[in-house]
């Protein structure tokens, strides 16, 4: 036992070069991941950023009691779940549908071109893309022009100033930006299907839709289920870059997601401890969701996510 230990120390010293590669990484993780985790403890204090942490008094669950009785907190939960649900229910099938339809294109060149073009918006910053959306949704914008031209509305609507439209703006702009990019993984999965399966099915007289249903969709089902599970486990998250860009004082009622609530309370109003309490609670729930996702993935596919 003792000899084994000294042997390990000797090996450790002999591989000092390898160790000197890894240890700075571990130090980095301690500083930038573990210290913030440790700092979650201020959720139980009245923390003052100007003073050393230990000078702040412990207040127990006070901040937790405060936020569960805050209407704005529940509003932010509603907004987060609302936007996530729309994205999950309506948004999740869209990239799959796109990948399936793209797969039906015979010309390889056309297929490649469409695919390459489709994920261009993913690489455009949200500042730019959000800026375009704000312009389109505003006075005299493209959306108003279009809706008036096809007779859906008879006067201009300032979409981004009316809270009731925000969830849909968030959904449509996100879909427009990310549809092609989200489809990549399905396209890759489809391209891995053995072409022999299709030929055999065609000989058996299976039509286009039958082949799509029985071969393509069945073959990519593991991919679909993993991504679906991941999407469910991300229900409490929101696309912060997007919402931060599109929110304003008028639509805040519907735009303030949990992330934005934490930002507003913590960094705008300066209630660090209060916000950290919300963060703490959310981290616990998110961790639970992640384990649940991993568990269901193991059940469904026999393989976990991590």
């Amino acid at each position, binding site marked *: 036992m003792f000899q084994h230990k000294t042997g390990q120390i000797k090996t450790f010293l002999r591989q000092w070069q390898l160790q000197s590669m890894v240890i700075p990484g571990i130090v980095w*993780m301690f500083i*930038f991941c573990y210290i*913030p985790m440790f700092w979650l403890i201020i959720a139980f204090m009245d923390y003052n950023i100007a003073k050393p942490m230990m000078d702040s008094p412990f207040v127990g669950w006070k901040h937790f009691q405060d936020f569960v009785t805050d209407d704005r907190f529940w509003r932010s939960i509603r907004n987060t779940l609302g936007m996530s649900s729309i994205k999950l229910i309506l948004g999740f099938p869209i990239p799959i549908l796109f990948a399936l339809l793209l797969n039906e294109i015979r010309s390889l060149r056309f297929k490649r071109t469409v695919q390459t073009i489709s*994920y*261009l*918006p993913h690489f*455009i910053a949200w500042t730019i893309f959000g800026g375009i959306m*704000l312009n389109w949704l505003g006075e005299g914008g493209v959306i108003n022009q279009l809706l008036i031209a096809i007779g859906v509305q008879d006067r201009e609507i300032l979409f981004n100033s009316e809270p009731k439209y925000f969830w849909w703006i968030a959904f449509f702009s996100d879909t427009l930006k990310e549809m092609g990019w989200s489809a990549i993984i399905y396209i890759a999965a489809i391209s891995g299907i053995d072409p022999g399966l299709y030929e055999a099915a065609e000989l058996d007289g299976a039509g286009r839709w039958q082949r799509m249903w029985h071969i393509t969709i069945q073959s990519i089902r593991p991919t679909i289920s993993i991504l679906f599970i991941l999407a469910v486990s991300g229900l409490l998250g929101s696309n912060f870059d997007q919402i931060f860009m599109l929110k304003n004082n008028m639509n805040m009622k519907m735009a303030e997601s949990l992330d934005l609530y934490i930002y507003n309370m913590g960094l705008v109003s300066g209630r660090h401890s209060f916000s950290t309490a919300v963060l703490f609670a959310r981290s616990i729930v998110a961790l639970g969701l992640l384990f649940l996702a991993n568990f269901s993935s193991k059940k469904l596919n026999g393989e976990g996510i*991590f």
Partner: protein
Amino acid sequence: MEMRRRFRRISVFTICNTLLMLAVCFITLYPMYFVLINSFNAPEQALLGTVNWFPKAVSLDSYRVVFNDENMMNGFLVTTLRTVIGTVVHVLFTAIVAYGMSKSNLIGRKVYMKIALITMLFSGGLIPTFILMTKLGLYDNFLVFIIPAMYTFFDMVIFISFYRTIPESLEESAKVDGASDYGVLFKIVLPNSMAVIATISLFAAVYHWNDYYQGVLYIRSQEILPLQTMLYKIIAENSMSFMQQQAMAQFGAKLPGNSIKFASMMVATLPILAFYPFIQRYLVKGVMIGAIKG
């Protein structure tokens, strides 16, 4: 009869599907096209609103304003520096840590991996991170773009799995010739990992170029404000930037904010568009590696 009906149905589907795909191309390209034409629209025309298809009169005035604006050009420089330095540091640091981690005879490897994995499951989040940056003196400091972005677990895993595909005999023969671990890494392993280095560099570079939020959170001084954060302030907070005030003075009321907005959006996107062929080639590869990894 049966044959004919089926043949006809297929061709209708093909036509509809092709049209649908063309529509997808149109709606994905149109937003950037819209920015392009409106940035070229003459200022006096831009007063009348945006154009949908073609500029009413082509003019470079808005670009002249953007390129003459010191703040804007400084933001461009900050973003470029941040992208170059941030990417190099990230790739180098992650590649080195990953190399050590990839060795199965590394003492403590299991513990190190656990330490790394926990960071994936649990994090301090916004407020504790903000406090940490303040305490480390990174608030309003250019290094806030570089140091916290030095490493990601995901990229490390990609490196490790790539290193494993390099034949061990290559490394062993270098070792026999007396090379140190660092020697093997820099002379043998990294030159054989160019594909993965390109992928991770582009991921990192796109992040650094497009990120505006770090600037919103941590930067107060104009001299180190990234371009995207400036754009955020101009577009979302609708603040009259120094740039616009200057332009107003220069052109009278003739130059409305809008056309300058579009020109600056174009300038901020140009590098992405220019690198797009590389980006799409390597990033798609990267997503595949990530997808295979799980």
